[in-house]
């Protein structure tokens, strides 16, 4: 079966370090820090009092009052980023066949604040206190549904849910949808709005999150020996995908090409990474095999790198195992050091960072590396971005449950 080449022609990014793709990129290369104290609820009893947050977010700046009330933030962020990706692609929605536009935008959790508020209302008022909008604001798939309703896109519409690998899996599935000719265009990515009372409480109870309350801006410090857990983030990242032929025919700007993916499971533990990295080895190896490339071809990897004591070492060791001597030649990074861990959006937001690194020929830094962990002994592009021609780059995303996804991006060349 002949397949089509798949390119990215539109990008939307709504993140703690920039509320548009160009601002996000400027934030990345300048080492901007999106982490600050949580102020929209009282954190005095919380072990962690900070998160990477979208600056000055006011729903009514983007939605009318009724829409703002009927959309959990998880859908709001995705709709904002989708609008940007569509505009950025310069697709004329009046001219295309909207029946052939897929939407695969996922969230790892769904409408978390909605679940909280409606549970409180149930306790106060009983069954009749639960809003008829509770279920449609909660369910993860509503995000793709809302996007389709807004624009009239009637192509394949659903989402993969794989915790922190969600955004990545959805981009992989959308790539297939274009590659096999099932859709003309696809909006793909991830979104999350977990900076909520129960969100922070839950991750705190797992002891997964940094509690560096005296210095929030240095809390997300992947590969540093004093790292103490991840920093929660929020936002959305969306790609517009289409076939290379379609992009060339309409003279679209091509940011780069998606060349393949590798999906796998750890089959090890619900939250802890497999120290032997067997699942991650499979994901990265399958990704390179599907792209038809060798480890030596890879110039850059945007790592999952969450700033947890176990995860960063396990991923480093796996990269050394898969790439051998070439591992030290790769510019690695974890942009979570700047925008935090955005869970279901991470694989999408960081895929945007990966692709823009290729497009601009610059690898953004991992900030906050003050004393590099001796067990993390590779080149993480510490603290300063590096100008480098990047032909092939990978993005890693791993989710609770042991879901792994690696995407392969390539510089566009004829």
């Amino acid at each position, binding site marked *: 079966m002949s397949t089509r080449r798949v390119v990215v022609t539109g990008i939307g990014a709504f993140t703690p370090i920039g509320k548009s793709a160009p601002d996000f990129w400027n934030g990345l290369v300048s080492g901007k820090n999106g982490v600050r104290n949580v102020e929209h609820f009282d954190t005095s009893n919380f072990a962690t009092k900070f998160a990477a947050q979208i600056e000055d977010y006011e729903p009514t700046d983007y939605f009318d009052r*009724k829409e703002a*009330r009927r959309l959990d933030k998880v859908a709001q962020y995705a709709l904002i980023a989708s609008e940007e990706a569509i505009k950025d692609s310069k697709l004329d929605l009046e001219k295309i066949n909207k029946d052939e536009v897929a939407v695969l935008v996922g969230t790892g959790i769904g409408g978390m604040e909605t679940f909280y508020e409606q549970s409180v209302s149930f306790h106060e*008022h009983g069954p*009749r*206190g639960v809003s*008829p*909008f509770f279920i449609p604001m909660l369910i993860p798939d509503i995000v793709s549904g809302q996007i389709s309703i807004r624009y009239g896109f009637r192509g394949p519409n659903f989402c993969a849910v794989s915790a922190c690998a969600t955004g990545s899996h959805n981009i992989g599935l959308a790539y297939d949808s274009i590659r096999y000719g099932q859709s003309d265009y696809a909006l793909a990515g991830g979104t999350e709005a977990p900076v909520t009372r129960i969100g922070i409480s839950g991750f705190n109870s797992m002891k997964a999150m940094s509690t560096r309350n005296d210095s929030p801006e240095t809390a997300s410090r992947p590969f540093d020996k004093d790292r103490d857990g991840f920093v929660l983030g929020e936002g959305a990242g969306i790609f517009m995908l289409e076939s290379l032929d379609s992009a060339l025919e309409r003279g679209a700007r091509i940011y780069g090409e998606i060349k393949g993916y590798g999906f796998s499971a750890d089959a090890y533990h619900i939250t802890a990474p497999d120290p032997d990295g067997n699942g991650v080895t499979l994901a990265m190896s399958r990704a390179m095999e599907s792209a038809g490339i060798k480890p030596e071809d890879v110039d850059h990897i945007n790592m999952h790198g969450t700033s947890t004591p176990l995860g960063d070492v396990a991923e480093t060791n796996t990269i050394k195992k898969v790439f051998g001597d070439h591992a030290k030649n790769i510019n690695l990074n974890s942009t979570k050091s700047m925008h935090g861990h955005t869970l279901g959006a991470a694989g999408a937001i960081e895929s945007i960072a990966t692709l823009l690194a290729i497009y601009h020929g610059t690898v953004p830094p991992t900030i906050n590396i003050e004393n590099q962990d001796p067990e993390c002994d590779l080149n993480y592009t510490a603290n300063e971005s590096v100008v480098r021609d990047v032909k092939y780059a990978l993005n890693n995303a791993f989710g609770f449950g042991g879901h792994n996804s690696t995407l392969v991006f390539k510089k566009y060349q004829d």
Partner: protein
Amino acid sequence: MSQDVESKVKAIIVDKLGVDESEVVAEANFTNDLGADSLDTVELIMEFEKEFDLSIPDEDAENIATVGDAVTYLTGKLS
């Protein structure tokens, strides 16, 4: 009393349906004039129940289609 009921009902409608207060007149129909869908109307009834601490059976709710219907019904129940 009915003045009080009316202003509370209007406030709920303005808040839940995101409409302008000037549109919320007695003869305004939730669906046809104020843009409510089936879920919106269910939510309005539930909000009336919470606000006035009473229960509105489904067969009564079916007959509440306008702002005036709601004010009349609630005023009757509360008197």
